[in-house]
């Protein structure tokens, strides 16, 4: 399997003098062609920093990043991206927002319009092309945001806590929606999430990250076959995995109880 993304020993430190804080302490990430990889870790564990390195917004202090075999450390414009908040330009209609993202990725304007018109009905947004983003619900905005990333002709899709800002029910629906869309299209995805269930439901592989400085604690192949049923969470095996990941993550988070008393 060829690797779409390879992050090798990425180290990133912020601050200077005494307030130096190492955020990434030698992180390795690989995403294969057509593979869905999730990173889960405690809050503030440097997941966002890792994405900013992959997107080229920051340079690592050491280590390198390859996309489709080429070293792209510090370069922008190699990924498709879906942020936690939909980040749709409020003065552009839904279609124009999609067109903007696609033309930045090198698609011609007419092709971008055609793709947008073709796909909006498929994500349940027929007739919303000329609406402005603020008239859409949070879930609809995130579907547009995902579609923009899906249609961009880029080797790797980076999803940064894509459903983190949604309420629990919408989140559940969106996960199942994304699962069905992804299984029909099989793009290479790197997703960052807080949610164990989300990672288990969607991914082929899960990387568990520790915090400050972040390293990859463990790598797990998710054993469930494809296509996955939305009722996967009723599977006893699913719950066993969930338990294991939970314990791993609790170990990775800074221990609050220990710092306080110590005697207990």
């Amino acid at each position, binding site marked *: 399997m060829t690797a779409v993304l390879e992050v090798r020993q990425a180290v990133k430190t912020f601050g200077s003098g005494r307030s130096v804080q190492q955020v990434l302490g030698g992180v390795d990430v690989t995403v294969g062609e057509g593979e869905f990889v999730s990173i889960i870790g405690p809050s503030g564990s440097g997941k966002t920093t890792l994405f900013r390195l992959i997107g080229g917004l920051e340079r690592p202090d050491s280590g390198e990043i390859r996309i489709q075999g080429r070293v792209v450390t510090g370069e922008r414009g190699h990924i498709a991206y879906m942020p936690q908040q939909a980040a749709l330009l409020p003065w552009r209609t839904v279609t124009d927002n999609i067109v903007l993202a696609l033309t930045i*990725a090198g698609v011609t304007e007419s092709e971008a319009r055609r793709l947008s018109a073709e796909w909006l009905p498929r994500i349940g947004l027929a007739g919303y092309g000329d609406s402005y983003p603020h008239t859409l619900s949070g879930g609809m905005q995130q579907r547009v945001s995902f579609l923009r990333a899906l249609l961009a002709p880029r080797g790797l899709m980076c999803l940064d806590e894509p459903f983190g800002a949604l309420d629990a029910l919408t989140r559940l629906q969106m996960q199942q929606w994304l699962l069905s869309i992804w299984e029909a299209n099989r793009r290479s995805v790197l997703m960052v999430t807080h949610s164990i269930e989300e990672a288990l439901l969607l991914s082929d592989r899960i990387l568990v990250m520790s915090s400050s400085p972040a390293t990859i604690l463990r790598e797990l192949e998710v054993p469930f076959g494809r296509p996955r049923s939305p009722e996967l969470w009723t599977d006893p095996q699913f719950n066993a995995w969930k338990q294991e990941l939970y314990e791993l993550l609790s170990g990775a988070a800074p221990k609050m109880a220990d710092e306080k008393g110590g005697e207990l």
Partner: protein
Amino acid sequence: MLLLLIVWQGAVWLFELEAWKLPGPVEIVREAASIWPRLLEHTWATTKLAVFGFALGAATGVLVAAVLHLVPGARSGLYPLLVLTQNIPTIVLYPLLMIWLGLGLLPKLVLIVLVCFFPIAVAMLSGLSQRDPRLFDYLAMIGAGKWRIFRDLELPGAIPYLFSGLKIAAAYSITGVIVAEWLGASSGIGYYIKLSYSGFLVTRVFAGVAIIVLLSLAVFGVIVALERWCMRWQRHKEGS
């Protein structure tokens, strides 16, 4: 507004003020009507100059803001110079401009542009630097270049700021024209007011002032309408 006019007219009648001290609104309207063709000619001259100068000033302001924003170092280097252009009172500046540029249209246009561009440039510049960090991060992540970010994020985001600058500049442009016409012109409301003063025709002075007020309101109205049109995407917000 109407109440103010009534109180004004009432005071004039009550205290039997002479027209050369303070004419009442009725008197002013009557006087304006009697000299209407001439007044219209002057109004037209002033309007042309104000609108043309304002448009030129607005273009200059937007251009200056874009250059200061886009060229690295330009902002910190040139901003003090911009402020300097505003420190010289127009009443001092205009005779100088006449000495350098003659008596024609040019010094007037230069004056109005100088008065107009500043509030626009300042407002626009703060608008350009107030880009939404979430949207900026998103566009940077998907590989948008500096120009794309300027054109599609910073520029549209600065539109509300631009309009507050335009509103201030519109008022400035009309005062600028009046000053220029007062100091050296052979037509326009400013010239007409000066002429009326020389003849102690206070009612005509007031008629001139009334026209300035109406003109300012009209220009302001046009700008507000334009703003609504540019920000029409927001209109759906209240409806939803």
